[in-house]
């Protein structure tokens, strides 16, 4: 796999700026149309939005995961508040209850934790698989060298 190039990094920044711009426009539109729901929603999704601003991973993978997890966790409260609350204060009280905020933010934390832990797990699993493969290859090589009287010295592997 080739390392990301400078060109790719620049295009990633443009995308991020574009996403932020669209998000700001969307938020502004929602504030204009329904400010009583938008503000508590922003509070609920705040970790994801912050992550969106600071995420440097290619394709904003981390922010995407956090936002999707938060969105999934926030669907239920927002649906209930959509028909039950009225006014900014009422919606804030209904949506920004501590347990609700904590649940949504924990979903964001879970997304972040998964994003950090899955590579480690994958790495551990891959390493075990490759170690087995390397052992098999070395055994096969030794058998071939011994059976056919080939040159004992293996090719020097290049270290990355």
């Amino acid at each position, binding site marked *: *796999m*080739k*390392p990301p190039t400078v060109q790719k990094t620049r295009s990633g920044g443009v995308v991020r700026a574009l996403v932020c711009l669209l998000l700001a426009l969307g938020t502004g539109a929602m504030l204009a149309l329904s400010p009583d729901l938008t503000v508590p929603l922003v509070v609920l999704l705040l970790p994801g939005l912050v992550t969106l601003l600071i995420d440097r*991973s*290619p*394709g904003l*993978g*981390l922010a*995407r*995961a*956090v*936002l*999707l*997890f938060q*969105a*999934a*966790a926030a*669907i*239920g409260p927002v*649906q209930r508040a959509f028909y039950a609350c009225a006014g900014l204060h009422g919606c804030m009280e209904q949506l920004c209850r501590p347990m609700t905020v904590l649940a949504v933010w924990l979903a964001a934390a879970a*997304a972040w934790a*998964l*994003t950090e832990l*899955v*590579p480690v797990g*994958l*790495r551990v699993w*891959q390493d075990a698989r*490759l170690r087995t*493969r*390397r052992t098999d*290859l*070395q055994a*096969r*090589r030794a058998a*071939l*060298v*011994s*059976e*056919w*009287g*080939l040159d004992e010295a*293996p*090719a020097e*592997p*290049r*270290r*990355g």
Partner: protein
Amino acid sequence: MPPTLSTALPPIAGRFTVDPTKPLPDAGGGLPAFLAASPNAADGGHIAIAVARDASPRLDALHRIRDHIDNLMTPSGHGLGPAADGGEAYYIICTAPPGPLVSAVPQRWSEKALVEQVLKPTARTLLTLQSMRLTHRAIRPDNVFLEAPGQPITLGAAWTGPPAMLQPALFETPYSAMCAPVARGEGVIADDVYALGVLMLCLAIGKSPCAGMTDDEIIRAKLEYGSFVAVSRGLRMPGFLTDLLSGMLAEDPDHRPSPQLLLDPNAARARRVASSPPRRSHDPLTIGDMQVFDARTLAFAMFRSERRAVQALRNGAISDWLRRGLGNAGVAQQIEELARRRRSETRPDIRSDAKLVMWAIAVLDPRMPLCWRGLAVRPDGMEGLMAVAVQQDVRAVSIVYEIFAHDVLSVWLARGADGRTRPVPPAVTLCQSLVQSGLPDGMLRAFYLMNPLLPCADPALADRWVIDVPALLRALDDLAATAKEALINDGIAAFIAARCHNEWDRLFDPLLDQTGADLWQAEAKTLRQLQAIYRVGPLPQLAAWVVRRLRPGVESWRNRTTRQEMAARLQDLARAGDLRPMIDLVFDRERRQADEDGARSAIDEVAGIDAELAAIADNNLLRSRGMRHSSTTMVGGLGLSLLIVHLLGAVAP
């Protein structure tokens, strides 16, 4: 402890067994003779005469004489037998001598006894031999036997070595006597008549007429005065005998009476052939330490002192003496022409002087043998000379090599020193081609070709008499038990090449060209071919040696399992003593190709493994980056899935 043979030798000619513990002194005419027993009583008494390793038996005579010949120790067979030292020896089986040697009975024979007991029976025997195109060439007192007083004499065996090999100079014409003993050639029946004449003279006077004289003195006397005068000087003999012997000892073979004529002694005595006496000079010419008075003796002196002869030829002393002292202007002119040609040579070589002397001797006396560097040889005596040269005489080897390599003999024969052109014997032509072929062992091959009954001269086979390839293989089988390195050296290779049929000769040429690393391969293949061609039985010790010898061949296989299986299989095959499956196993082309293909596949596979291992190490870091990206994608996918599920849950009633 004497060496013991691995196999019992079969009886010679199917019936004769030799007892080497019972020697028979004097019976072999100078060669060791032993009692030969036959279970068939009708065979009568026989003796076995041992062949010397450097003296080739007369194979032509052994082949042509099939029936018993009266008054002759007739050959009855030949073959291998046990030697006194426990090894092998080659024997010629002959009828036993009827009594003691005539030389053991010192007496003067009467004229009548000489005619009836010596001349007539011997003439009949010579006539029989002549009808077979054979000569005897061994008529001398210590090879002639007498059964009892009044009985005809019996000629001894003459088949065990080259013709006239043991003849003293007295019993040979001077031209034959000056040749190397083994190079006197078959000669003609007139040479036997000559020897018979000298024998009769010895018996008539009861002693040797030239006792106390050296061979050179006898030869010189015969050349200077004529044979009859030289051997009968100071003797008083009856007129009949004098006339008869003077004819039998004539210088020209054509002037001697034939055996047929000798059956009628009176007619033989009456036969007179006019011959002019040789011209003599009053003033001698000195060549070396010899003073010569006639042309024949001059030729002999030039043969004996080649260096002085060259000086005398080049400074004109010889031609001057011939013209002024001898009055022979014709010969002097020919000698001058030879010397002039020699002086005018722009690029003389080391053979120029030898050629000058050779042609000068031939001009002085055309009956002289080929004289080359102090060695005189008859063309049909080359095989005997070759045998002695190769096995004993280093100087003779170089002379024989020169004679063959530079066409000396064929040119001498073809140009006709006496004005007659003589055909070159086929054996000489063959040997010339071998020596001139440039093969390092050309001389050895020529020796083995010319002497088919002589054994392989390799020192390792000194206690054996190996004359053919099957015997060689059996001998190698015994030697293989203790051999460490190569068994087939250059000498044995030359023996194989010479004793094999010409058609197969090419099979063994590669062996002669191989050296060093590839020698084992050619050696093993040659042995396999020989065992198969000659259908020699099992050779277990040789097979075990071949297993050791084939180790490089086994090691050259790439696959270890194949090598191990092959080594085990070779051990099994070696016990059977058959070389062919062993060699075929190691040099199997199809299996070898499969082995090479397998090795190439293994190399390719190892290269692939190395590349994969290197790739694993190389992609370690990149893999972790990619893994992070894929994990975020996976988590994103999981989040999207959860979102969809919750949305569906919210929308669904």
